[in-house]
């Protein structure tokens, strides 16, 4: 059961081979046994999970069950959940219990899924290694001395270690895809506007997008069916007809045009990562897909653009944490202004403060045009690169991350080295495009490698179809890490 996909668990629940209470207990036991080692969860409330599982079993008994009814799902601690704390990985919100549920949580509740717990993450989703969490780093289940990736590192590690069959994440510059790659699981960042941001604690609002992490692409499709959909409370939520994300799982690969951006296969990428990615692409060719060399010439500018735009938006979004209405408040202060300054100095960690300061700087008088406006213009050039590329291909493939999982502490003293790690995941959200990562093999140290598949706007079903076809022919996604034996 631990190594089963959501699709399989859903069938087992429907066939009454297992109850949701049994399944939830199985995963809660597993969390109890392994979370001390991995630190993937910040909060687990067993009683609450089991109560939800009981309700799911009753619902099934009434004949009112859907595909996710009774399935335990872990949620990144960025999604507000009523009645169980939401910390966003920060001291600022260490004791915060939201008075409302995020739209994504409402959707999973409506589907009858069981909330298994809240997963660890980089503080306010700012990080690529899960080392900036106030609650300590998450350890990679493939090698405890290495990072799981970030910022959705707890969700990725939880799915990888089989502590949860599925989890939610959010992706601003790669925070679903990069940890999925480094932890050996599948993860999807949808087109901007497909999943509501209501109740998803804001980092950079023009980029933030929620999405699922699971073992398989077919599972991601099932989870997307629950997560996606219009929500009037998010002003950027798109009003579109409901989609069935499983509809293209039998995608015909013959004739599929796969674009290979030459910038993604350049020097600077770990040769073992490139080998695994090329092997995966050769499999697609063996099924009749055609590869096309494309160019995304502004790829190298994506990281600098991102580190203007994301901090600028963050500096505005995080101004709400002022110690007045909720969250941490400093104990000692001289006056109101000092209270704000000390509250924020104490409540935020070093990386969050750094990004707020950068954002404040690039938006300040005299620098706005040179930095912020210029970054927005280059952002359009990056989006244009993609629209020209998608005139020549159906999907784009390449590595998700230039390396496999790096060691804890290896990049934490040099922010720029950490940022450059996201070079292949940052471009898609700048353009608003969907991207996913699936496991495509291992390096010589036994660390997982991720294949990234990007598509045009609203091409999620096709991307998931290509990924699913690959996963039917390979078993990389079903391998369990050695630090979390089944």
């Amino acid at each position, binding site marked *: 059961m631990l190594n089963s996909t959501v699709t399989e668990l859903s069938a087992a629940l429907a066939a009454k081979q297992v109850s949701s209470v049994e399944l939830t207990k199985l995963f809660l036991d597993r969390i109890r046994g392994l979370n001390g080692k991995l630190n993937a969860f910040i909060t687990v409330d067993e009683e609450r999970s089991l109560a939800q599982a009981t309700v799911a079993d009753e619902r099934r008994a009434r004949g009112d069950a859907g595909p996710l009814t009774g399935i335990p799902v872990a949620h990144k601690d960025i999604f507000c959940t009523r009645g169980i704390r939401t910390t966003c990985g920060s001291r600022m919100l260490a004791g915060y219990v939201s*008075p409302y549920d995020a739209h994504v949580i409402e959707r999973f509740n409506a589907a009858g899924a069981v909330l298994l717990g809240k997963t660890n993450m980089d503080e306010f989703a700012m990080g690529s290694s899960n080392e900036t969490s106030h609650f300590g780093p998450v350890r990679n289940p493939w090698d405890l001395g290495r990072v799981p990736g970030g910022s959705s590192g707890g969700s990725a590690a939880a799915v990888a270690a089989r502590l949860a069959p599925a989890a939610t994440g959010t992706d601003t510059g790669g925070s679903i895809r990069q940890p999925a790659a480094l932890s050996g699981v599948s993860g999807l960042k949808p*087109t*901007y*506007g497909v999943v509501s941001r209501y109740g998803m604690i804001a980092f950079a609002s*023009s980029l933030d997008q929620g999405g699922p992490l699971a073992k398989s692409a077919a599972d991601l499709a099932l989870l997307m069916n629950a997560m996606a959909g219009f929500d*009037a409370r998010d*002003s*950027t939520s*798109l*009003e579109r007809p409901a989609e069935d994300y499983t509809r293209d799982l039998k995608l015909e690969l013959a004739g599929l045009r796969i674009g290979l951006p030459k910038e993604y296969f350049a020097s600077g990428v770990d040769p073992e990562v490139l080998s695994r990615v090329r092997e995966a692409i050769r499999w697609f060719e063996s099924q009749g897909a055609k590869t096309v060399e494309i160019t995304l010439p502004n790829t190298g*500018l994506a990281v*600098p*653009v991102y*580190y*203007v735009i994301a901090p600028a938006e963050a500096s505005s979004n995080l*101004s709400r944490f*002022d*110690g*007045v*209405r*909720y969250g941490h*408040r400093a104990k000692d*202060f001289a006056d*109101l*202004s000092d*209270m704000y*300054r*000390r509250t*924020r*100095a104490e409540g*935020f960690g070093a990386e969050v403060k*750094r990004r*707020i*300061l*950068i*954002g*404040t*700087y*690039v938006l*300040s008088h005299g*620098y706005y045009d*040179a*930095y912020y406006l*210029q*970054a*927005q*213009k*280059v*952002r*359009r*050039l990056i*989006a244009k690169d993609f629209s020209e590329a998608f005139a020549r291909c159906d999907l784009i493939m390449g590595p998700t991350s230039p390396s496999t999982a790096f060691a804890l502490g290896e990049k934490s003293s040099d*922010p*720029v080295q950490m*940022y450059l790690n996201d070079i292949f995941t940052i471009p898609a*959200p*700048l*353009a*608003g495009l969907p991207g996913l990562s699936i496991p495509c093999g291992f390096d010589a140290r036994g660390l997982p490698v991720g294949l990234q598949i990007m598509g045009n*706007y609203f091409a999620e079903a096709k991307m998931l179809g290509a990924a699913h076809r690959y996963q039917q022919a390979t078993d990389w996604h079903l391998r369990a890490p050695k630090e979390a034996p089944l």
Partner: protein
Amino acid sequence: MSLTPDQLQRIALLARIAVEPDEARVVTDRLNQVLGLIDQLQAVDTGGIEPMSHALDAQLEAQQRLRPDEVTEPDRRAEFQGLAPAVDQGLYLVPKVIE
């Protein structure tokens, strides 16, 4: 562009984040590393390019939603104030600003 510790203190004031004198040097150095990265943008020719403020700006502009001006949220003041560090008689308390 490179920041001095004095400029850092001005930005820190704007951001309402206290930066203690003993950490100012390290914070300034790290910020300057990041500014070195983003300074690459200065060399890009963006003549005639419209700034892109949003991922789907074209689509979003086409469908800006409006709703009737009606009250849609219930009053949950007591519940919300339960989260605050200090409240009194339905008001959020902050240090005295006017003597």
